[in-house]
Every structure is written in C-alpha cells, then in structure tokens.
C-alpha cells in the first residue's frame, strides 16, 4: 500500500481550529475535512468516502490553511490552524474542477442510471454549475459489460479511486487500480480481459463506493422514481450540516 494512503496518526488531544471565522474543536491529527464534518461544517468533496483512507485526487475539498491551498481530506488538524472553506473564490474553483470532470468523461446525465444519486452531478448542483463552460473532450473510453452482475462504464469514471481503495481496504481484494498517466489515465481491473476475470461481487463495497454511474449493479437501474432520488430535493452535504 502506498504511504500517501495512510490515514494521518491521531494523538487524540483536542485542538482548536478557526474555519471561516468560527472556532471548532478537533482531535489533533484528525483530517480537517473530518473535523469540520464533526462540527457540522461541510467541505465539498468527491473522492473522499467515510471509512476509506483519503485519496487527494479530486481536489474539490481544497481549503486554504493559513492562506495556502491544500486538500482538507489529507491535511491533519493542529492547534490554531486558520482555515478558509466556504468562500466565493474556493467555491468557484471547486465548481470549475467539477466542470473539468464533466468534460473529461462522457457524462450523459439524461441517460445515466445514477442520475439523481450521482455525487458528481450533486456537486454540480450544489456549486452552481448550470453547464460545463469547457469544451467536451469526447475521449474514447472502454465500456466493460463482461461481468454478469456488475457493469464498468469508464465514460462515467472520474478517477477518484474510491473503488480501488474500497476493494483493497474493505473487500480484501484488489479488483481495481489505475493505468496510464495524464489525461490518458484510466481505471484498470485485475484481469487481462475485463471485470469478468476478477473476483468482484455485486455486493462488494467497491461497487457501492462509486460516486457516479461508472460502476453499476446490473438489473437494478431506475428503481427509484424521479423526485425520490437522493439529491432530487436535498443538496449534497445537507446530512453533514444537519
């Protein structure tokens, strides 16, 4: 396992942070993102998932720590940190990163089974994206329907790595990884020819961990009517702020 996936050590001592002018307590070494969440403050995030080591891939949780931008999901809390989170500047840049992810992949919300429950889409709503301002890249990405129960559609992948971490950490398997680099980077599976060659199971945490419609359990689509889906009426992050 890579060192960058280690969860920072927590000493357990209570420290104080200042986030957008509000003082909050935190356990020393706990990540800023989690400390904020414990205090009912939502830091927008995509590649973070509770129960998994942080990835630092999406950068949507970028906050300013004593003026320097860094990812809240990886940065450990310590006494007296001054943080900016809910600012126009950061939210605009977060929205732009969401827009980048939309044009990088081939995300067709109207025909996607995950629409309404998709975290990428929900972040777009929350951060005020009406439509991506960048040109669509229309890249060719492989669809893998080889497995009887699980579909992998790379067109909808945001390279958050949640499936890879969940498979390794929670399922005790290594079904997913990355290959390539830069804009050519893709999610890869632990077999020579597709998902069918792996030991994935539809009930795996890896499948549940996907924030978009990239990993889907077959024959389970569109069971919930429009209007009742996760983010139809409630913005993402509301649960944290509750």
């Amino acid at each position, binding site marked *: 396992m*890579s*060192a*960058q996936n280690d969860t*920072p050590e927590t000493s357990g001592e209570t420290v104080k942070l200042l986030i957008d002018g509000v003082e909050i307590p935190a356990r020393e070494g706990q990540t800023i993102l989690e400390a904020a969440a414990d205090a009912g403050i939502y830091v927008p995030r995509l590649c973070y998932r509770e129960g998994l080591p*942080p990835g*630092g*891939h*999406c*950068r*949507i949780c*970028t906050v300013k720590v004593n003026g320097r*931008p860094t*990812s809240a999901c*990886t*940065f*450990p809390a310590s006494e007296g940190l001054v943080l900016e989170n809910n600012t126009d500047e950061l939210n605009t*840049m*977060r929205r*732009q*990163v969401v827009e*980048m*992810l939309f*044009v*990088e992949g081939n995300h067709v919300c109207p025909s996607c089974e995950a629409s309404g429950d998709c975290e990428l889409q929900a972040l777009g709503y929350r951060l005020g994206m009406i439509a991506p*301002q*960048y*040109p669509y*890249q229309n890249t060719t990405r492989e669809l893998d329907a080889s497995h009887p129960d699980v579909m992998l559609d790379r067109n909808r992948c*945001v*390279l958050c790595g949640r499936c890879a971490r969940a498979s390794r950490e929670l399922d005790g398997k*290594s*079904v*997913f*990884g*990355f*290959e*390539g*680099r*830069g*804009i*050519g*980077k893709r999610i*890869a*599976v*632990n*077999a*020579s020819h597709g998902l069918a060659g792996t030991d994935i199971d539809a009930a795996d945490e890896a499948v549940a961990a996907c924030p978009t419609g990239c990993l889907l359990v077959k024959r389970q689509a569109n069971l919930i009517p429009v209007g009742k889906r996760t983010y139809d009426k409630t913005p993402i992050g509301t649960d944290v702020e509750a």
Partner: protein
Amino acid sequence: MVETDVVNRIVQQFGGDRTRLLDMARAVHAELGHISEETVAALAKALDVPRVEVRDMVSFYAFFFREPHGTNVIYLCHAVVERMQGADDIARALEEATGTTFGASDPDADITLRYTSCIGLSDQAPSALVNGVPVTNLTVDDVPELVAALRGGRDITRLRQAQVGNDVRTAGQVIFAPTERGAAVRKAVTMTPDAIIEELNVARLRGRGGAGFPTAMKWKFCRQAKEDVHYVVCNADEGEPGTFKDRAILALQPNLVFGGMTVAARALGARKGILYLRAEYEYLLRDLESELDKRRHLGLLGDNICGCEGFDFDIRIQLGAGAYICGEESALIESLEGKRGAPRARPPFPVEHGYLGKPTSVNNVETLCCAARILVEGGAWFADIGTKDSTGTKLLSVSGDCTKPGVYELEYGLTVLQLLERVGAENAQAVQMGGPSGQCLARKDFARSISFEDLPTGGSVIIFGPERDLLEAMRQFTAFFAEESCGWCAPCRVGTTLLEKCLQKILDGKGTFSDLEALETLGETVKTMSRCGLGQTAANPILTTLRNFPILYADRVRSDDGVMAFDLERAKEECCSVAGRAPATGEETP
C-alpha cells in the same frame, strides 16, 4: 514460456523484492523488448502481488513499450529549444529515410521513431537518443548515414554525431573548481554530524532545484526524525526542459556528487544512499559506477569510511524510465519504491516519512556538490560568494537563441542583462527563466537579478530571439505539462489539456477577448487547486506571458460578435467523404 522464464530469473536476481519492481521491469524490458500483458501477469505472479499493481507501474513510464516495436528505437527530442533548432526538419528526414512515421515502426520492424521531451542536450540541439546513445547537433544531412548504420547493424557509438560535449562555458569556484577525490569525506569524518549541519547553516546553503529550502534545516529535520534507518537520496532526474547542468556535473565532477552524498550520510546517520538517475542519462551510468568502485576501493564508501569506526555507507544508482514528475521528491521516492511516480500527500514530509517510510533527505545534484565544497572550504567562505540571501554560485543551462549556449557557473546576483551579454543574446525578446515551470521574462525584467530573492531558478534559461513566435513556444510548454501530468489529481490532469487547447484555439485565430479571460481564470484554478508542483506551475507559461506580453495575445484574438469561429467545413468533411458528397456546394459528386 519465454516470458515466464525471463521474469522469474530477473525477479530472483532482485531477491523477489517488490520495491525493486522498476529495476525488474527495466531488466525485463531490456531483454524482451517490451512488457506485454503476459509479462505483467508473470511479474505479478512471481512477486505475489495483484497484476493491476504491476500494470499500474509499467503503464506509467514513457520508456516502457507495451507492444513489440522495431529492433532500433530513435527517440527524437521534440522540446521547444530543439524545435527552434530544427528538430522538425530532422523528424521529416527521419520519416523519409526510414519510410515510417513517428509513433510507428518501419515495415521490416528495423526502426521505431518516437518523440520525447527534453533529454538534457538543449545546448547541442537537435539531438536524439538512438538505442540509448545520445546523438547531438544533428543536421538533415546526418540522417541517411544514421539510418544506414542502424540498418547495417553497425556500432552507432562510432558515428561522428554520437558524442556529448560537456564544455563548461564558465567554471566558478564551487562546482567546477578542481577537486581532490575524498577531500570532503575526510573532512566530514573529523566533524560531528551537528558540526556538519552547522557548517551548512553558516554557508546559508539553499536547495538548488529551484524551491530554495535551506539545506541545513532539511538535514536537521531528517536527522531529528527518530528512526533507526535514514536515507540519502540524490535527485539526478533533471527533467525541466532546457536544463542540462546536472549532466555536466555527473560527467565532470562525479566525485563531488558522491562526496556530498557521503557528507550527508555522516550528517544524517544514513547507511544507504541512492542516486536516482533519469533514464535519458543511462549513458552516464558506466562511468558513475566506475567512480563508485574507485571510491569503495579507496575506503570512501563501504564500512568504516576513512577509518571512522561505525561510519558505514554505500550508494546505489537507480535508473528511471521516463517521467518528468519523478523530479518531484515524493514522486521520486515512490518511483524508487517500484511504483508509479505519483507525488505523495504532504505532510508527512520525506524528511520524516520518506523512502520505505523512513526519514529521507532528497537533495539536488548541485546542492550536494555545494555541501561537499563547503566542508572543504568552510561555510564562511561560501557565504561570501553571491548575495545575502543567495549564497554561492548557480549553474545555469543556457540554450535557445544565443551564440554561446552551454553550462555557466555564476555568482548569484547577476542580472538577466549581464547574463544575456555573456551568452551572446543581447537582442532577446524574452527569457524563460527556470524553464517552463518558471516565468517568461520580458525586456522590462532584464535588470532583475538571478537570486532566490528576485528570480529563483532551477537553472534552465531558454532565450527567445526577436523573430520567435513566443506564444507557440508557450503552447508547446503547456502541452509538455499535459503530457507529463501524472493524472493523480483532476485539476492538473484535465486542466493542463484544457489550457493547451484553449491557447491553441487562440493561436488558430479563433479566440476572442473572452477566451483570454477564460484562459487566465483556468490557469489560476489549475495553479491553486493542483496537488503538486507540476500542476501548480503548469499554467506559468501562459500566466506569465499573459502578464508580460499582453499585446502578443491581443494581436491574436478576434472581436466578440456573438458568433464563434467554428470550422464548419472541417466538421463536414467526414460526412462528405463517407456519403460521397462534394463539401463546398453540398452537391453530389458525379
């Protein structure tokens, strides 16, 4: 199966150590010519790791072929300086002589042509690596002979162009002054680790890679980290386009480099050192290994160095496999551990949690040389050179439009104009200081001084003459970052590509003033949101020219009348050709 036998033998050579996967992959690649999916599976099986992990690593590095290719491989350097000096003409000549195109192999699978980014020979451009052998100062007329030599199976190292010039234009007092082998180490064994660190502190030595972190502080943090094992790593992965000063150091002053590493080992209490050598410099490996052997023979490496009881230290050389990002210290460490070169989240910093999780000091080649010299000449002597905040000398790799390209060792504090006069480039339009990740300077900046306090630089100085299309060069720099982005984080992975396309649109005459605003906003977002130095500096070519050369941009955009410049004819071409219709009139072809 052949692959399995080769893989098993090589894995055994490295004791089945997963962290040496990069070496194993290199060895397998050298023997089999490429790393197929079967080879990946065999490596995974032999190491008992998931194959997806092996594929992750081998798919990352530019110099690993995943498919069979020609017997000979020509990597033509296609970076900005090389293209200024005619690399495109060489490319055409190579395609003509071989009968193939870049990215492909000729029909007999004799020769494969590939482009590569800077190979550290910008002072001798155009240049190429041919089966790993550097060929320099290429002209179109050299190409047929080169191709004939390859086809005839002749020894290309005997070709006239197969040589690297390492003439140092200006030798200074620190790096290129005469050196006595072992002087620094002999001094180090008489000093306590704290005294060594204090000497660097007196010298006010700062890291030469560009960021300028105080070396004494780095070593102190690393020494203080409570662990049984510490590592010294020399970063010889200079990949910044236009940089080649480490090449000159490694060729001319290797003893100073290894001396500096040994001094560091003494200061940190390290027993192992690694020099990470970029794959493009593989041709330097033999001489470096022979220098290491000499040092072992002289007791400058090994157990009880210089008779100092318990001072045991040795150095191995790790070759890379083609990835600019591995110059970033935490990515370099990942690569050393046999993984893809993706930077790590920080904190924790490598001085606490580095190679194999142990405290590691990663230092630039030049920094280590400075450290070795400081031990011999004293910190106060060093601090007297240069300016108050930038002590010592700096090596500059000067290339582009000047009469005297090459390596210069100069005192900090020199102005850009003084440098331009020295290198024969008084009429420069612009100077790219610190390479693409640095800044593009206009004439108004030429009175500024090269120093940490004003113009910090890792050493790359690229000069653009008055006739150059500066913005096209910036586009190529941006494309370079897009190519070298590791892909870990979204803003860099996607943003660099979007930046390049947006600038291309403007250069094509299709941009408007609102595209210029969009370009700047995008650049600032990539800079702020990216995870590591690559993404944080990838927009610099664009952002610094938007600031310093606004008129160049204004001249390239059209007024905004609500209708975008869209190439409708080009978009119609495919349909017209498939359906057999004439594109211009929409009428049927007879």
